[in-house]
């Protein structure tokens, strides 16, 4: 069983794929920070243009992007549903039930809209990074940028064994289904299957640890760095940072000098 889910896109060639992951990580962070500073709807436009450019350069398939962004929406929605009623300002609609008053304000609606847009834009930048960088290179970039080694190793193992775990879960479930495991026994048996899965994962972890020890593991995971930061990467980094800065400045101007 093969799951190309996590890194299906990152193996394609595109304008961003050859770029050093460090440059891409730095640019993504800058772009996300720029978006985070926005608080008025009119200031969103330049950032929207920037996100569109990132999506284009990373060759994000529109439907794929829409699907991923839809996953972000529920989180934004929770905040988006509360804010319009809790922000003081000009009342648009008022519902009055005696002791309980609900006021929908213009400022509240605006804030909810901006917040949702910010979340979607930030997600677009992050997706552009992930879709144009194979995960192992992303890890190497994080390591070199000073992300704690333990965190990088945990992510690496997660990346490697997520597939094995999903496979194992599918195997256990399929094996049960093939042997005519009916709907009635489902609940009772689900616990047992989960137990099997936990046990298998535990024993696998022991064997993997052993395989690591057998190859001289002493607590430090060593890798050779495949990264080379070239002139091209520096140029792209500066061009990108200039674009982010331009977006932030023009957003500032569009919002009438307020952030």
């Amino acid at each position, binding site marked *: 069983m093969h799951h190309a889910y996590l890194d299906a896109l990152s193996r394609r060639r595109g304008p961003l794929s050859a770029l050093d992951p460090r440059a891409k990580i730095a640019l993504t962070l800058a772009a996300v920070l720029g978006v985070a500073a926005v608080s008025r709807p009119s200031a969103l436009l330049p950032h929207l243009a920037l996100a569109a450019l990132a999506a284009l350069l990373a060759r994000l398939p529109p439907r794929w992007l829409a699907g991923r962004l839809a996953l972000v929406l529920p989180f934004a929605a929770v905040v988006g549903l509360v804010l319009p009623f809790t922000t003081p300002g000009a009342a648009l609609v008022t519902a009055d039930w005696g002791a309980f008053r609900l006021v929908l304000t213009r400022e509240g609606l605006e804030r909810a809209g901006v917040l949702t847009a910010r979340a979607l834009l930030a997600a677009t930048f992050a997706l552009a990074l992930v879709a144009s960088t194979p995960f*192992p290179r992303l890890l190497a970039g994080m390591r070199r940028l000073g992300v704690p080694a333990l965190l990088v190793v945990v992510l690496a193992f997660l990346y490697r064994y997520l*597939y094995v775990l999903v496979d194992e879960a599918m195997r256990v479930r399929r094996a049960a289904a093939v042997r005519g495991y009916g709907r009635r026994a489902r609940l009772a048996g689900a616990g047992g299957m989960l137990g099997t899965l936990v046990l298998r994962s535990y024993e696998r972890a022991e*064997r993997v640890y052993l395989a690591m020890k057998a190859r*001289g593991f002493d607590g430090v995971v060593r890798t*050779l760095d495949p990264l080379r930061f070239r002139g091209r990467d520096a140029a792209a980094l500066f061009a990108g940072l200039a674009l982010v800065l331009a977006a932030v400045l023009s957003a500032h101007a569009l919002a009438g000098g307020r952030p």
Partner: protein
Amino acid sequence: MTGAPPLLEIRGLRHAYGDGAVALDGVDLRLEAGEKVGLVGPNGAGKSTLLLCLVGVLGPAGAVRVEGLPAAPPHLDRVRRRVGLVFQDPDDQLFMPTAFDDVAFGPLNQGLDGDATRARVAEALAAVGLAGFEDRASHHLSGGEKRRLAVATVLAMRPPLLALDEPSSGLDARERARLARLLVGLDAALLLASHDLPLVRATCERCVVLDGGRVVADGPTEEVLGDRDLRLRHGLEAELPRRAPRPASTEEQP
């Protein structure tokens, strides 16, 4: 005889799993440096268990010695660097994000520098026919490719003893032949647990038969495997049923 201890010495090795199943019931075995030995026997004979005892995961302390060192604390790390063990399941063996990182893991831990490590990785990958697979993620490899990559991860460390558990299972004919040539050309000693008798014949001058956790035969491969009675007794050979001829069709054959 020189005074140097043998590469591998196993004396009276017993192991019972937690649920009481006795997997090894007093095994004695000696391997000299460079010796290539096949380990055969029916399912459940204890072959995989024996290999795990070599690196001190299982088994009592003191029954296994590698170059004179007991496979037990505080010598475990040194013993494990001398025994290149390849597990029966490659998913246990391959734990790094890319093929390159996985093969480089051992050499880097041995303290090799970047260039020497890169050379080792290229050599090991080429030896198993995976040149050019450096950037591939191991979960995107086929079963046979995973198995070959697992072999490469220990080859790159150049241990004096290679312990392989079913390395040819799932390989196509060409890759199986490549593996056989690789094993024949190896300077290291080899303990090869396998059901693939032709592979054992092609690569090992000596063969050990394990059954019920005991060594039931140990000698030159041709002698041991040439004994048909022994093969039949220990599940190394069995008659397959003949396919019944098709029921006569209603149409007359011309």
